[in-house]
């Protein structure tokens, strides 16, 4: 063999390369980044069902959906389907013996700015940036972060946290133990409920907006500025209510006293253009000044 190599170095090199190539071809693909492009019209609907992994959704100006994924262990199969303006992406096990860790698949999805999204995943992280359209998210432990999104957003998590930064439109979020944060929102409808998670609303209450935040324990924290105009009804059955605002009695409709149960109050700030309802079973409600 050594003599062959010495006599025919080029042939030996070529043979080696061929052998290596054959060996690589026989091995399962691992950590290969795959991608698919889908031509769409305006406002496509993109659905992704994944088990675990990082999911990143961002937007571009093209009328095209790009789905790129990486499965480090090569144990997951990604199936895609397009029917007109609907694109669906599903992940499933390559074989029954694979663990969910082995099936972990990371996605990078790029969609037109105006797109509808539906994402279902169990664990990992989901980030969405600058997408305008209705969205639904259904996760177990996956954390969800939305930035600069606009639309009707519906979120359901078990214990994944949810952070919404500069979101506008309408939001419905339901979690058992996940925290929910709305930072600089321009939302005109908010319905958020958690069991043990904390809720933070740090933004302006829009005129005609309705904001309902409820939990069992944990803290509900709402930040307001002096210019905000809203009616508030805050009540914690077993916990405390900390209020830094100077509310006047509710002047809209039939005057009614605060509930005789628990701690809380009803009041109005400025003209009461928005409606804010904060309720907790045993958590603390904080209404704090941003100024």
């Amino acid at each position, binding site marked *: 063999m050594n003599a062959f190599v010495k006599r025919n170095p080029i042939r030996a090199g070529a043979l080696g390369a061929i052998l290596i190539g054959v060996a690589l071809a026989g091995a399962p693909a691992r950590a290969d980044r795959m991608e698919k492009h889908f031509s769409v019209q305006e406002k496509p609907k993109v659905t992704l*069902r994944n*088990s*675990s992994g990082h999911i990143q959704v961002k937007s571009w100006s093209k009328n095209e959906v790009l789905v790129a994924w990486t499965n480090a262990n090569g144990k*997951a199969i990604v199936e895609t389907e397009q029917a007109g303006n609907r694109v669906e992406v599903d*992940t*499933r*096990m390559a074989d029954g013996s694979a*663990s*969910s860790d082995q*099936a972990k698949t990371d996605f990078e999805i790029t969609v037109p700015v105006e797109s509808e999204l539906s994402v*279902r995943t*169990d*664990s990992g992280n989901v980030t969405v940036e600058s997408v305008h359209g209705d969205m639904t998210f*259904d996760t*177990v*432990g996956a954390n969800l972060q939305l930035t600069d999104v606009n639309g009707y957003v519906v979120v*359901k998590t*078990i*214990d994944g946290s949810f952070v919404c930064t500069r979101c506008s439109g309408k939001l419905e979020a*339901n979690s*058992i*133990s996940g925290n929910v944060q709305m930072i600089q929102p321009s939302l005109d409808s908010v319905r958020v*409920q958690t*069991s*043990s998670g904390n809720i933070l609303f740090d933004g302006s209450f829009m005129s005609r907006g309705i904001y309902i935040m*409820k939990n*069992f*324990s944990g803290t509900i924290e709402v930040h307001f500025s002096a210019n905000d105009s809203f009616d508030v009804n805050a*009540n914690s*059955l*077993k916990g405390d209510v900390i209020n830094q605002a100077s509310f006047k009695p509710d002047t809209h409709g039939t005057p009614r006293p605060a*509930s005789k*149960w*628990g701690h809380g109050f009803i009041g109005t700030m400025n003209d009461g253009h928005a409606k804010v309802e904060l*309720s907790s*079973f*045993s958590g603390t409600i904080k209404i704090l000044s941003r100024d």
Partner: protein
Amino acid sequence: MQCEQFEQALEQQDLEPLPKPALAHLETCEACRALFADFGAIHSVASELAADPIAPLSEHVWISLRNQLEAEGLIRDPQTRSRSVQNISPSWWSLFQRPAMAGAFLGIVIAAAGTVSFLSNSQSSSQSAAAQSDLTTMQEVSSIPAANSVFKEEVLNVSDDSILGIQRQDTAVTDSIRRNLRIVDNFIAMCEKNVREQPDNPMAREYLYGAYQQKAELLATAMNRNMTGGLQ
């Protein structure tokens, strides 16, 4: 006839028509009408579950249902549960992997939530005052397992050690669901205690109803993750 007497009549009903006084009471009491409807719904669920011809709605239906589930290894006697902790089979989860069973349990959960909801909503009527204050005593007195007690016995136990089957899928998901079931169970216990302490407090009932809903949704998510979606 008062609500308590109606409940006793309901216990002894055995699919026979209700006695006239009970029917008269049913016409005037929204809470008892809701209770009667809920029992009917539970009976329908039981009829789907039981392999044997359906017996009248009496205690023996529930006992035979339990016996059958135990015989199939789908549930364990509470007394033997502690003994067998070291040797747990994934029986509970296999129960939930049967759509009919899963649907039935969810139905029971929803019926339980519905009972609380109806009782909560009917507080304004004078007749419902007794029903409200008797939410818990009703179930303590009755020999028929009420929706709430069935819920407690059969469904809440899932949270402890009974969802091992899901480990095949994802231990992180299993852990998350277990952890959150415990959280919701704790809230249900707290809310129930609060309702007992403050039977006239509508907010307490509203929170209890909300906790039941959370439980039902959590169980639905758990079943959905293993039976129909995600990675199979």
